[in-house]
């Protein structure tokens, strides 16, 4: 009943924003405050605004975004854990005129799939890699990730990550930026409207570069995990700015000369 009233009320307003056709009707399963739904949204807005829905093929990871194909209204494949870039580059080699992206989390891309990530970037495969870094394994229930911060408590680093037992947070984005095959490497976030606008620009540029066959574009999004971090969404974003940004500072890491 409340919904009916709401829709009637909505008619009184001017529509300034709509869900893009590039998103399906399904409701996101993501936890409240999670960055994934915002990144899905921005990515699909870019696909719609560029008019490339019929030419875009995505690859979903194993992790919280495993069901990305339930939301993103483009042809998609779900890859084995860590292998999204391998599947994506193969799609691109078969269909070189399509826009292809791999969407991966930190465990997928920077732990089990490190070899694929490095070699995909090193060959300069002409795809976009979207990398969500929230420093934790969300789907499996909050275990330590390669990007988990020192001192950060997870279910497998219950007293906080130490260098002695788990080494250092892996700055994989800085690593791939050193490879000649990457053309554009940037680190973004989605915790403020301005950050969302910046991400949108980065993704748009990445698809443009892909059209120009420039090489691998790599967009990290420093994100949050309110459930895994055991915080409210607001607390999580504040914690992210205070603790994640010093280690993973937002901004372009490698830009075309």
């Amino acid at each position, binding site marked *: 009943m409340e919904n009916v009233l709401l829709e009637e009320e909505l008619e009184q307003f001017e529509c300034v924003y709509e869900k893009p056709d590039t998103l*399906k009707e399904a409701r996101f399963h993501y936890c409240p405050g999670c960055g994934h739904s915002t990144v899905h949204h921005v990515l699909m807005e870019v696909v719609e605004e560029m008019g490339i*829905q*019929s*030419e*875009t*093929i995505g*690859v*979903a990871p194993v992790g919280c975004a*495993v*069901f990305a*194909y339930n939301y*993103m*209204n*483009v*042809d*998609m*494949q*779900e*890859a*084995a854990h860590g*292998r999204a870039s*391998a*599947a*994506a*580059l*193969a*799609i691109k*080699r*078969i*269909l070189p005129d*399509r826009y292809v992206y791999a969407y991966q989390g930190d465990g997928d891309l920077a732990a089990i799939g490190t*070899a*694929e990530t*490095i*070699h995909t970037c090193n060959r300069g495969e002409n795809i976009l890699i979207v990398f969500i870094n929230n420093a934790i394994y969300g789907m499996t229930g909050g275990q330590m990730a390669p990007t988990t911060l020192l001192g950060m408590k997870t279910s497998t680093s219950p007293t906080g990550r130490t260098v002695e037992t788990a080494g250092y947070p892996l700055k994989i984005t800085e690593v791939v930026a050193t490879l000649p095959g990457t053309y554009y490497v940037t680190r973004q976030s989605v915790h403020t409207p301005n950050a969302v606008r910046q991400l949108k620009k980065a993704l748009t540029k990445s698809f443009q570069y892909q059209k120009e066959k420039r090489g691998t574009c790599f967009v990290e999004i420093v994100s949050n995990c309110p459930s895994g971090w055991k915080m409210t969404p607001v607390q999580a974003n504040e914690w992210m700015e205070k603790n994640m940004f010093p280690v993973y500072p937002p901004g372009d890491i490698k830009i075309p000369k």
Partner: protein
Amino acid sequence: MGDLRLMKGNEALAEAAIRAGCQAYFGYPITPQSEILEYLADEGRKRGMIVLQAESEVASINMVYGASGAGARVMTSSSSPGISLMQEGISYIAAAELPCLVVNVNRGGPGLGTIQPSQGDYFQATKGGGHGDYRLIVLAPSSVQEMADFVYDAFDLADKYRNPVMILADGALGQMMEKVEFRDYNPADHIPPKPWATTGKPPTREANVITSLHIQPEKMEQINLRLQEKYRQVTAEETRFETVQTGDAEFVLVAYGLVARIAHRAVELARSEGIRAGLLRPVTLYPFPAKPLRDLAQRVHGMLVVEMNAGQMVEDVRLSVEGRVPVAFHGRMGGIVPSPEEILAKLKNMMTTVEQHAEAR
């Protein structure tokens, strides 16, 4: 008319892949099959094939997943340790019902083992190999000619059933040279449309999704039941085998691949000594020719299974004959290839044992 050449088994297989319209090959070097990658990197690329030397077999098989999902006719090849690395990806491919060819030029194991020929991967090839309930269609060539011929069949079967197909060869078949005739084959007449592929969603259809994830137990069970029904259909329609002089045979050798050729010679030696021996050679290892073996078991006195392993296919033979006849086994391992004389000696041993049993009864 076909085209007659003298080639290594690995090269013949690679040449056939080009002729079969294979669009892409993803692989990693490993002895004794690296000639496949080398041949395709040269000849395949010249003739328009996408050939990528991947960073690992894990990457290779997942590239096969992506490329097959994008609608391409696609393959990889490796040898035993590399095939072990691919198992997760093969399970995903089978579950997502993607057609592809996986070639295993079997070498001796376990572990790093040896680069010499072996049939030690029979279990892995025929029982699934990776996780979950799935099957590959497995073709076992026994000559360089079949290393080529089975490539066309493998791709066609893969497309027909949307299932990964394995060619299970061995190091000897890969390395030896024989004459090979390439058949006339026009890929356009064989490759079906693939409306399920992720090629970019036009406005006229829903988005295509390739996945093996079905979180609802009821849905996942339904998918398993459908896969099992497919495997039953494959068994009913695609089981292949050959027989040599089994019509009047009292004792039958059962062997596949390279060993089937050696066993064929052993049959000739036995016949020259007046022993009524025959040979049944499974050509498809999955589906396994269980019924012809069961039928044979009604009228022969015993079977001898010969393999280059510790006894793997022999289990399927015993399951097939259901105790109707004694089934003996002779196996060599570590890269040792059995000789016809050695097989004949084992056959005579078995005959003696069977006859002693008969007298005791």
